């Protein structure tokens, strides 16, 4: 805004204006910097805490002695502890984790993320195709019905889904984690909008060439909508990675098919790590655990920043 030519009566008022603009700029940067520090602080704590030797971190937190945070003992020992098969309980005894380590949590989360993303993307692509391209009776009414479900708080569905999962004996199975959220109305909505932007002429041209409806979807629409589909894949993967409440309700024990295999996902696993031992020496290890489950998200963010921001801002504009 400041760059546009503004005309002043004399040199003095021009200088006063410029001085005011500079002061404003400084204030703006000050405000932004303060909030940026506020946002970054937890990450700094996370990085520092995860690399400091657990004993040193304990000494630091007991005595507020910043020397203990020095670089001399930095290393990966906390990370090793996170992936360890045993843990030390509150009474100092070594306890086996019984398959409750982060390797297992990661494996579970990958299975759920890949499974539920596949189901979600397939259902969303097919449904969006029907709503965007095909003519059928009741199309608008059905779509309006779907949109209406977006307004209902998920907690209402959770109550019945929880009972259904119990009665189907799906508790502590992957089916409960993957299938119950097998379709996302928001993704159908988002993809439908992308599909609708594809010009009609392409569809008619494909018809003339003898390509059927599904052939058109596969060969024309999906390639054109690939950026949107990528966004959906990433957001859905991130959703599985962050899901906590539903897994906590239906899959917080060991796997129905193998009692030695824990069903916890990473978020739930992290919480169980925090509950295992409340003594101070565990703090650095807990921080390392938090780091371990945050890091993959950061990597995804660095590599797919464009897609993530696109999806998020799109969902904002089309509210």
């Amino acid at each position, binding site marked *: 805004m400041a760059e546009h030519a503004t005309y002043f009566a004399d040199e003095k008022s021009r200088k006063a204006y410029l001085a005011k603009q500079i002061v404003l700029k400084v204030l703006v940067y000050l405000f932004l910097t303060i909030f940026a520090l506020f946002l970054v602080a937890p990450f700094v704590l996370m990085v520092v805490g995860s690399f400091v030797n657990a004993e040193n971190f304990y000494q630091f937190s007991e005595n507020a002695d910043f020397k203990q945070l020095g670089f001399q003992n930095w290393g990966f020992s906390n990370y090793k502890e996170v992936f360890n098969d045993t843990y030390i309980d509150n009474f100092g005894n070594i306890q086996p984790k019984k398959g409750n380590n982060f390797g297992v949590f990661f494996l579970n989360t990958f299975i759920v993320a890949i499974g539920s993303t596949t189901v979600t993307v397939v259902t969303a692509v097919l449904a969006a195709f029907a709503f965007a391209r095909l003519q059928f009776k009741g199309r608008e009414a059905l779509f309006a019905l779907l949109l209406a479900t977006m307004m209902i708080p998920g907690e209402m569905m959770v109550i019945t889904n929880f009972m259904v999962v119990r009665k189907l004996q799906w508790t502590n199975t992957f089916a409960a984690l993957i299938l119950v959220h097998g379709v996302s109305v928001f993704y159908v909505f988002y993809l439908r909008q992308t599909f609708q932007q594809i010009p009609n002429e392409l569809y008619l041209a494909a018809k003339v060439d003898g390509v059927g409806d599904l052939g058109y979807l596969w060969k024309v629409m999906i390639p054109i909508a690939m950026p949107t589909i990528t966004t959906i894949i990433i957001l859905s993967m991130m959703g599985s990675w962050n899901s*906590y409440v539903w897994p906590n309700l239906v899959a917080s024990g060991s796997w129905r098919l193998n009692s030695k295999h824990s069903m916890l996902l990473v978020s739930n696993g992290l919480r169980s790590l925090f509950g295992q031992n409340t003594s101070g020496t565990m703090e650095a290890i807990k921080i390392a655990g938090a780091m371990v489950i945050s890091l993959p998200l950061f990597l995804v963010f660095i590599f797919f920043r464009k897609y993530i921001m696109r999806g998020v801002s799109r969902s904002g504009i089309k509210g």
Partner: protein
Amino acid sequence: MVATENSIQGTETVFDPMKAKLISKRRRVSLPQWAVAWLVLIPALIFISMFMLYPIINTFLYAFIQNFKYEKGAGSFALGQFFTGISRGKVFTFGLSNFKLALSNETFIYSIGNTAILVIVEVPLTITVSLLIATFLNNIKVLKGFYQTIFFLPYVTNTIALGLIFNLAFSYSPGGFINVFLNKVFGVKDPINWLQSDAYKPGMMVSTKFTQGVVIVLYSLWNGIAFKILVFMSGLATIDSQYYNAAKIDGASNFTIWRRITLPLLSPQILYITITSFIGAFKMYTGVMAVYQGAESNQSYYFGSIPELPADRDGEAWIPIVGWIYRELEHNYDAPGIASAASLILLAIIMVITAAQFAVSKKRVHY
């Protein structure tokens, strides 16, 4: 190559590939469009009807049937239970008793109060801060991308992980980062016990509802601004710079420009964010719980069970509505009537507030 996916019937096998192409074009009996549409909708509709539509209807039934209880050997589904019950001569009465029970539960009322306080404090705060940050970001050139990335970071973090980090940062121990910071920068001598509700050292202060609330609000602010900034930024990007230039020529001050041009033109995004923030804040649960975790050194937390309100409520936990619903559901999973009624009350609150916002916005939002 010719796609044959939808020529399910009617294509004859012809061995000459060149000929096959021509013939199949003519002989193809393709399905009518409506049939293809319903075919591709089947997977989505199965999931939607099973796990979305059915649960919605079902939860209404649970809420309005008095003394609904699951019985063994009556099928998996509530409707099945319902009809089996009727066929066995059981009389179901519809009524509002579940709502009465929920509303007469002290803890539920308490949780509504908690949620209301958090909503009233948190929503305006987060929206104001993110609106300011977005406007400022839009007006700078140097380091814009850098700041933008930092402000977006909370969006890609794990709620639980960062809640736990907040919990550690606000710990009472001498090295609790916030207390150290307050001590070094503002000279606060005695460490503040932000979260713990039990005194494990003699003479130690115990956290109050206020200190706990401060931590929860700060965490919600931290967790909530990324999405809002992004939405506001995308809205600001669509505002034509002509308006700004015209205002400048008229000699409007920066604040006037912001007040008279930026805000009105950003009003659709502000409305959207206000509505989603209110809904999100009323459904708040994970954040509150993550911040608390570890504060209660209780062994029953082992595998992440739902936080209990202390029996004597000394800790004055900030249990939110959703937290209460889940707790009720876990305790009485065979009789989900009260939890369902509570979730309908939550829905009603959300709908009333959303409707009120739309009503207010009619005058103030410019599309």
